[in-house]
């Protein structure tokens, strides 16, 4: 067993599960989407991105790209959230919530791709 692979796999899958946990629920209901979950999704995604740095293989490059996409989407979601709560006079509205959730949905897709790639790589190893 390779500890590096364990940590790597752990963070990639955790990024997906947290992302999924945040995403699931009624689309525009703020009560169904936890801000802590978004926070952890961002942190774990960032860690997963850094872990992918320096892999020169083709699959490593694609993994890094999917992670960067997920980061971008989640950070965009966080910025929208922050803007709605702190700056916008109307506060958190269902329409804003739905755009946050849809952004995180995009990130979810990228994370799914990451995990699929990870599984493909693992299967190809055959050991």
């Amino acid at each position, binding site marked *: 067993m390779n500890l590096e692979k364990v940590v790597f796999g752990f963070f990639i899958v955790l990024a997906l599960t947290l992302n999924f946990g945040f995403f699931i629920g009624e689309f525009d209901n703020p009560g169904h989407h936890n*801000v*802590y979950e978004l*926070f*952890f999704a961002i*942190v774990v995604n*960032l*860690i997963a991105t*850094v*872990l992918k*740095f*320096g892999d*020169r293989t083709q699959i490593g*490059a694609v993994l890094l790209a999917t992670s960067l996409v997920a980061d971008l989407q989640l950070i965009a979601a*966080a910025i929208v*959230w*922050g803007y709605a*709560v*702190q700056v916008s006079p109307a506060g958190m509205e269902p329409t804003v919530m739905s755009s946050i959730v849809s952004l995180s949905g995009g990130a979810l897709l990228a994370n799914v791709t990451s995990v699929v790639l990870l599984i493909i790589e693992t299967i190809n190893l055959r050991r």
Partner: protein
Amino acid sequence: MNKVIFIFLRRMRAPLLVIIIAYAVSILGMVLIPGTDAEGNPWRMDFFHAFYFVSYMATTIGFGELPFEFNDAQRMWTVVSIYLTVIGWLYAIGKILSLIQDPAFKQAVVEQSFARGVRDMSESFFIICGYGDTGSLLVRAMAQREMRTVVVDHNPERINELELEDLHLYVPGLCADASLTSSLQAAGLQHRNCAGVVALTDDDQVNLKIAITTKLLHPGSKVICRAETRDAEINMASFGTDSVINPYDTFAHRLALALHSPGTHLLYEWLTGVPETPLPVPLYPPHGTWVLCGYGRFGKAVKENLDREGVNTVIVEVDPEGTGCAGFCVVGRGTEAETLRAAGVEHAAGIVAGTDNDANNLSIVMTAAELNPDMFMVARQNKRDNHEIFQAALLDLVMQRSKIIARDIFAMITTPLLDDFLRLILEQSNDWANEQISRLTAVVRESVPDIWYFPVEESHSPALLGVLDKGGCVHINDLTRDSRDREEPLSCVPLLLKRKDHESVLFPQGEVSLRPGDQLLFAGRIGAWERMKWTLQNRNALRYVQTGKEAATGYFWKKFVRENSRL
């Protein structure tokens, strides 16, 4: 992926993870700890404010406790966060600094900028392997002519010299072993603009390897090699190396040329010199007995050439057995008066100080000058640094190996026909050479002429070819007229006309008419070439120099002229 970024990311993995985790822990703590707002109501920091607070705290900017004053629990957590994040940052910055200092990283940065320099070459360029005395002279001369070069040398000091050199073109330099195929490839051997490779390292084996690699990987390109032994020379020539230059032979040959036909030698010097520098003065080495100090590779080549000229030589050599001249030489270094006297220096016509030690060579000629001030003095200069002292010694001829090779190679690279021309003039008599020199002097006056070459082809001389294709006739002296005023001749002389069937005419007459596929070599003053180019490429200019008439260019005007001529 880019190597530099790759190394950077790989090394920065740990510090970035530390920073992300430190931030995450600090932000989460700030959010979870209950606080109070200005009115004393329970309030919890949200993620936005927590991120804002941690960002300025971690970077030690410190705006204070925002948005509301902290309670003790929050302050406690802030203390923990400060140490956590600041240490994280210090770790990351320290890592970046040590990474920049890292030799592997530096090497990667240098290699990358070199690779970019080579990749971006948009004009044809030459790869120069070996940046010693010869290499640096060659690169400098080529840069003056706006020709691009790429340098490969295994000695890092020389590459540093290249970087400090004040060339007005960017010359990428790679510190690598040129005998490795990968180094040559990195230097752009397979680049579509690579015109050729010049192998100037001081190791014959390395030069040989470079020549073979180039011939195999980039068959169309030109290869010019330096070889110090006959074996290597023959070996290189055997697989189609374009030119092999043996430094010892080359300059012994040049000395012999100066002896037997000073005119030809002078012509040679003029045409291979750096344009716009003062013209070299003619040399008249005396015939008579010559004293030859040093019987190494240079000495042997000189003796061979002098023997061919029928000149008697006396050899002075410190190690007769090692150099194979035992029995017919004076034993000694030549630096002391006794040895020179024994060699008969008082009655000799000339002396050649040809050892591989510059100090000894100077000592030989100075001692000899005291014994016989009238003799013709030739010294071999090995190191370029010693240029000043050799100049100060007021010798008749200084043989600087690197300069001779660099000039020869430069001539070969810049003007393809010059090589043919120089070979052909060697077969001519000295009187012939003197005649041509007087012709050239009338045109170029005091400075070394510019040399140029062009073929009668669509790419180089479309106007000229256009006239020939229509059955017209163009003479050489049409081209040597000024396209601004045809009564004024351009200051230039045609040196060589090479026909398609390899027939060559030296100094062709002005009445000779040109044919498609001809190649021409001219010498003249700087600026004359630009004027001639105009004639070659612009049909109206060509028409003007041929007939003296300004041609009608527009549709309307052409029609008008035609109608008028019909009347």
